[in-house]
């Protein structure tokens, strides 16, 4: 396997006596689709928060490529290509979809401090934003305000905003949370269609989707990495069955 684009070394975090991360070591090779699974409270979102800099680990380090990014701010990490989405929509309700994505593109291209030129003079930026929306099937509604979009479209806009930051590594926190099953398949098809230059790690509870779209799976339990492997290995793993799949989540179907 090639050198990891994202890796963590011995990440630890606790809130008081509650340990939410304990010696977490992950290494994501370039271009791989990773699923991060685990029961509620396993520390999945906490891990994403630490990796993206929104939560400071008690100890340990985070590496993006060869660089130690543990001390960088969330903004700086995004600029280096480490981008996330949110489990609960975190969008710009009164901006249109196109405005939202254009905003992100302008910020990345560092033209967002220009106040003496019209936005419409930035054709390249607007076109790039429009292309991202087109790829995610949002072009027909790109002039609607975000809060007027259907929920599933808002979930897609979450991803569009992340893509506008040109990620090397994309962390998707339950991208299909709250989306009906049929629509969530379409949503994952869009994720599967992303460029292979982007390494994707997604949190997902629906095992069918996990086994269909992930090439590797990390199982997190109680703030520890229980096991990591291909979907087939995970499905066959006795420990995973015991602590996770056995608890009412049903048999995984293999995709």
């Amino acid at each position, binding site marked *: 396997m090639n050198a990891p684009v994202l890796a963590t070394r011995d990440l630890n975090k606790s809130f008081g006596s509650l340990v939410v991360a304990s010696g977490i070591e992950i290494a994501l090779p370039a271009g791989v689709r990773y699923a991060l699974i685990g029961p509620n409270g396993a520390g999945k979102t906490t891990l994403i928060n630490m990796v993206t800099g929104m939560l400071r680990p008690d100890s340990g380090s985070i590496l993006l490529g060869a660089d130690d990014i543990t001390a960088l701010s969330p903004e700086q990490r995004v600029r280096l290509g480490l981008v*996330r989405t949110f489990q609960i929509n975190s969008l710009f309700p*009164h901006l249109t979809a196109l405005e939202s994505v254009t*905003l992100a593109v302008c910020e990345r291209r560092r*033209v967002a*401090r220009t*106040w003496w030129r019209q936005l419409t003079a930035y054709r390249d930026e607007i076109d790039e934003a429009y292309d991202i929306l087109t790829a995610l099937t949002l072009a027909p509604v790109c002039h609607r305000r975000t809060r007027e979009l259907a929920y599933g479209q808002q979930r897609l806009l979450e991803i569009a905003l992340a893509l506008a930051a040109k990620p090397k590594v994309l962390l998707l926190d339950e991208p299909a949370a709250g989306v009906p099953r049929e629509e969530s398949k379409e949503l994952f098809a869009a994720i599967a269609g992303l460029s292979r230059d982007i390494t994707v790690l997604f949190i997902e509870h629906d095992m069918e989707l996990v086994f269909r779209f992930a090439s590797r799976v990390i199982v997190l339990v109680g703030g520890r990495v229980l096991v990591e492997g291909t979907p087939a290995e995970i499905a066959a793993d006795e420990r995973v069955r015991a602590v996770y799949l056995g608890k009412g989540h049903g048999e995984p179907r293999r995709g």
Partner: protein
Amino acid sequence: MALSAPAPAGPLQYLEAQARWRPIELVFWLATLLPFVLTPSYLVLASQIAVTALFAMSLDLILGYAGIVSLGHAAFFGFGAYTAGLISKWGWGEPLTGLVLAGFAAGLLGYLFSFIIARFRHLALIMITLGFGLLLEEAANSANWLTGGADGLQGVHMWPLFNTFQFDLYGYTAYSYALIALFLCFLLSRRLINSPFGLSLRGIRENIVRMRAIGAESRPHIRTIFTIAAVMAGVAGAILTQSTETVSLGSLDFQRSADILVILILGGTGRLYGGLIGAVIYLIARDQFSGINPQYWYFPIGILLILVVLFLPNGILGGLSEMVNTERGQRWFGWLTSSSWRGKSP
């Protein structure tokens, strides 16, 4: 004024249409010339309205576009007013240089203060701006030797504008001067809100947490807009000083900060014109009500504010724009707010 006109084809055309001048805007600016013809005896009031409108617009830039709530915005108005007054008192009565220097001084103060502002949101921000305003008011009060304290600054005398137009008792020069300054600042603000920077400001207002997650640093944006707003507030204060040839503590007291917030919320935030309309309504109402009863004129203003907030949560302009957006409204007034009145763009 954001109106949901049918979307023209293509991403660019729609955004261009959004930024285009609408007929109602031309009507508005032509109407600002009416006082010269219709009510020449009210030009002093008209100049006060223009000054207040400029001040309200500067607050709209930070409150309506970047979501920065300030209860101490009069600090910059007053700082500009005193700077303009002192320059004149110290022997330089040329209005334009005085105006520029006052704007610069207020902007410098705003820039320094913006480093604190950019670190806070919501309630903390209200308290900090309030404290800052009170601090400056007390400083001006106690620095008797400089500001004249509670008696106000005496000895302000302006030279004629362009060596030709004396600031007269009837307010001809004052209103022309204030109106031109207002219009220029409006053009600047309009360009600013339609720029990539303006879009980022709206992003900050909408969701500052998400701004971080798309790699945007909000603080430099906040510092920039706060400085620009402080310059405009300072210019407004300077015009008041220059046209009345006095400066009082009232130019930077809490009452003025509160009034300007009321004016902006009455008119509607985040639409540039909200502060302008608010200033027109508020000052005319004050003029009329205080004519009826000089002591209790705040009573009807209070009722007006409550009614507007209850029934028009987006201010008077927000309410009007909703009316125009109905089917009947579009039929009657659609042409006024349409962005395609110049004909189809290629």
